[in-house]
């Protein structure tokens, strides 16, 4: 995640936005989700939940119900890709500050709160399995 954030930070604003839109286009919504998986404070109606995977790992699932939640979709796709096959310890260690590193500092507080909530949920799901 840190490497990805560094790579995005190196881009200018336009290229970073294009890169994030491309990531969002890879997002695959998982429409069947438990209500308790709702990300608190995320106005894009995002959901994060997990299940155990072989070799002591875990699989994360994501849903974004707001069709205009493109930043939420980009973050969900990134988190899905970065956590696939990763150790539970490394998922639990994903820092909240990664949102600003990925998206820059132009986001509104509300938007940042929602996206940070998603990162917290991901780390929280991992911590439950440590």
């Amino acid at each position, binding site marked *: 995640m840190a490497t990805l954030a560094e790579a995005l930070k190196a881009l200018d604003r336009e290229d970073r936005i294009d890169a994030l839109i491309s990531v969002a286009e890879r997002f695959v919504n998982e429409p069947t989700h438990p209500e308790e998986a709702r990300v608190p404070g995320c106005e894009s109606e995002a959901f994060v939940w997990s299940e155990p995977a072989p070799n002591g790992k875990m699989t994360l699932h994501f849903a974004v119900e707001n069709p205009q939640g493109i930043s939420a979709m980009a973050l969900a796709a990134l988190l899905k890709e970065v956590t696939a096959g990763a150790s539970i310890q490394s998922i639990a260690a994903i820092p909240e500050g990664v949102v600003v590193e990925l998206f820059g500092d*132009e986001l509104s507080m509300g938007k940042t709160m929602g996206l940070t909530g998603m990162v917290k949920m991901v780390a929280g799901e991992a911590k439950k399995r440590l």
Partner: protein
Amino acid sequence: MSTDIAARGYAHPEALVSTDWVAEHINDPDVRIVESNEDPLLYPSGHIPGAVEVDWTRDLNDQLRRDYLDRVAFEKLMGRIGATPNTTIIFYGDRNNWWAAYAFWVFQLFGHTNAKIMDGGRIKWEKEGRELTREVPAYAPTTYSAPERDDRTNRAFRDNVTQQLDRSNPLVDVRSPQEFTGERLHMPDFPNEGALRGGHIPTAKNVPWGMAIDQDDATFKSADDLRKIYEGSAGLSPEKEVIAYCRIGERSSHTWFVLKYLLGYPNVRNYDGSWTEWGNLVGAPIEK
């Protein structure tokens, strides 16, 4: 579900246009369509053909002080989007036109009254399956002459809020009930949008901004329904001066639009200092 704009009983129905109207005027040289969003990825990912983007942080805010752009910067912005004083500006955006209303309000500080909001915003356009494009249009730059920014007619400062309290005139707090009661304050890492104290300005009525929107199709509710909300429940009245506020003045610009244009309140202002100023003021009265 929405009815025709003209049938909804608004004081100034001309302040709104439908998605049909916009579709018919995409190539109208006298019309400039402007998208303003909270999410910076939305416009580049696809927008109404011919629409330009006006970004609330980069275009509308002063980049140094906490204030809005000045006359020179506004003239430059209008020149960049190829607008003249006669151009009809149509605003639309995400979040039920929250940011579109904010941009509309800033444009009114410079007297560009030839402006309207697309009813239903971006979500309605999308749900209707209308065309979106990634092509960013290039318009021939114009020379736009604007008056100095008028901070008295539609904008309120903290001294105006204090006077409002002294005169027992109404305040409408359009934040969420959790913010109104002080249960939710701000994000710890965002002191620039946060406040040291939670609660609301004394006597303010809480009417969350989104109550003005029909949840089925994101259009504005009818004038009768809006009166029930703002005059019935909240006790506002067009006879009194009203000041609306939220956290930084964006959500309250949406309510300002509703009260001024849809219900025809003659004296309504937006306190853009809002809770991030009031909740940090030493000695300012607060209720929870």
